[in-house]
């Protein structure tokens, strides 16, 4: 008999440990509370929060995109600045060879 079979043989006795509420109305009360909470129309604050959440997310995304773009552009400018003299130097070399 493996561990599982050994434990499964105890399930019959352990079933008595399942919780059953003393109050028979407990289940109806749970269902009624859940129903009232999910059917309740949203309050003004909840509507505002629901509207604000995607707006905030969009603004955050736009900020991240703008920051990354400006960093990429700045890096590209630096590269142009450093490569220009090399080209000039190269042209100078070519001119000298032709001479």
């Amino acid at each position: 008999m493996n561990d599982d079979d050994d434990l499964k043989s105890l399930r019959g006795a352990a079933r008595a440990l399942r919780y059953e509420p003393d109050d028979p109305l407990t289940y109806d009360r749970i269902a009624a509370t859940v129903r009232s909470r999910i059917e309740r129309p949203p309050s003004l604050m909840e509507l505002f929060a629901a509207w604000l959440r995607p707006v905030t997310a969009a603004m955050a995304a736009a900020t991240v995109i703008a920051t990354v773009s400006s960093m990429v552009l700045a890096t590209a400018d630096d590269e142009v600045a450093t490569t220009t003299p090399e080209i000039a130097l190269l042209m100078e070399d070519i001119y000298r060879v032709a001479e």
Partner: protein
Amino acid sequence: MTIAVSELSRTSAAAAALVTLLSALQAMVRDDRTAPLHAEEDRADVEAAKGGDPQAYESLVRRHMRRTLSIAWGIVRNAHDAEDLTQEAFIRGFEKIGSFRSGEAFGPWIYRIVTNLALDSLRRGKRHPTEELSPELPSASRSDARSSESMAAQIDAAIESLPQMQGLVARLFLVEELAHGEIALITGLSEGTIRSHLSHARRKLQQMLGELREEES
């Protein structure tokens, strides 16, 4: 004389087995938790609930609240807290139903929500005093009923003596009769860890039930 004693013990063992069987049958009639996790019925209700149908969601609530309440009680061991946690779990479930993946089983999903809420409430320490469960057993024979009752009490004591996650896994397997895969979905543990926890629980139960048998003999 020896034959009479052995006959008596055989009769007593048969009566104990009968009591256990009756108890199991009674529990099956009274309780829908022995049925599979209602996958087919749930699927249609989940899709309707995703579209905002509160009646479909209420069907899910009614189908799963017995086990959800029992799982919550098994962790917090207080009727009032367990009821509050069950309500909260179903409300959160409705709020999150949009992120519920089609094809997933609703049962383990909602049991996971209630388990996390119950464990959080234990961590916060905001709870009412714990209660003892008095198992409902058929009173076919007083001594047999007492024997089954003490066995259930020993199982409960053994589960309670285990570390929190091991105890939770043992309770879900033994009391709620869930499969390894379902327990893995609920607890977020791997099936290997669950097997290891159950092995530990089995050793503890063997030890405690051995002591009980020694006391009885």
